[in-house]
């Protein structure tokens, strides 16, 4: 177990949120918040990925073919 120092008002907000959500402890709440944060970032990455794919007018299957080709190139460089 580790301890982190946080300002009083943030501590109060966390406690209120924990009670609202019915979490057993603050660690459980922070875990949920971390999950939400990671998922949101992943969705942002997905949105960027789809935007770029569209801009390049690339189909998903074409992208996979190009990826396969690049994998071959890396294997030639990395594996003797």
């Amino acid at each position: 177990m580790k301890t982190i120092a946080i300002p009083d008002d943030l501590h109060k907000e966390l406690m209120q949120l924990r009670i609202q959500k019915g979490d057993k402890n603050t660690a459980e709440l922070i875990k949920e918040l971390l999950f939400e944060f990671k998922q949101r970032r992943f969705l942002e990455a997905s949105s960027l990925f789809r935007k770029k794919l569209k801009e390049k007018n690339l189909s998903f299957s074409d992208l996979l073919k190009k990826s396969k080709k690049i994998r071959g190139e890396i294997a030639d460089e990395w594996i003797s």
Partner: protein
Amino acid sequence: MSGSLNKKRFVIDTNVIFMSLYDVNSKASKIIELANQEKVELFSPESVKEELSRVLKREMDFSEEEVLFLIGTLPVTWIKKEFYNEFLDKTKVKHKDDKPIEAVSLMLDCGILSADYDFKDRLDINKLLRELGC
């Protein structure tokens, strides 16, 4: 890796990663979600990270910063070649390109999540998600 003993571990291939990014409602995306919930652990060789990086930059015009952002959102532990190197000779997959994936799966003694039929022992994602209660 503390606390990882009860978690299911898998090696994830590039095509599954791309599918998860392409369709956020896909089964591949569900796997990413499970990893973000720490219900499963995902691993992949650094060659897959390099493949992602080159595809994003070269074929999709991603900037270096955008590549770092996208790869940073993936809940994947990247395994350096020096760790899986000795397992490359033990792989059975036909193509040299796919050997790092199988080598990491041999090293960690876990299954492969891939859309590539060349991996004979690849896991059935539908079955896996059912087992995980999804």
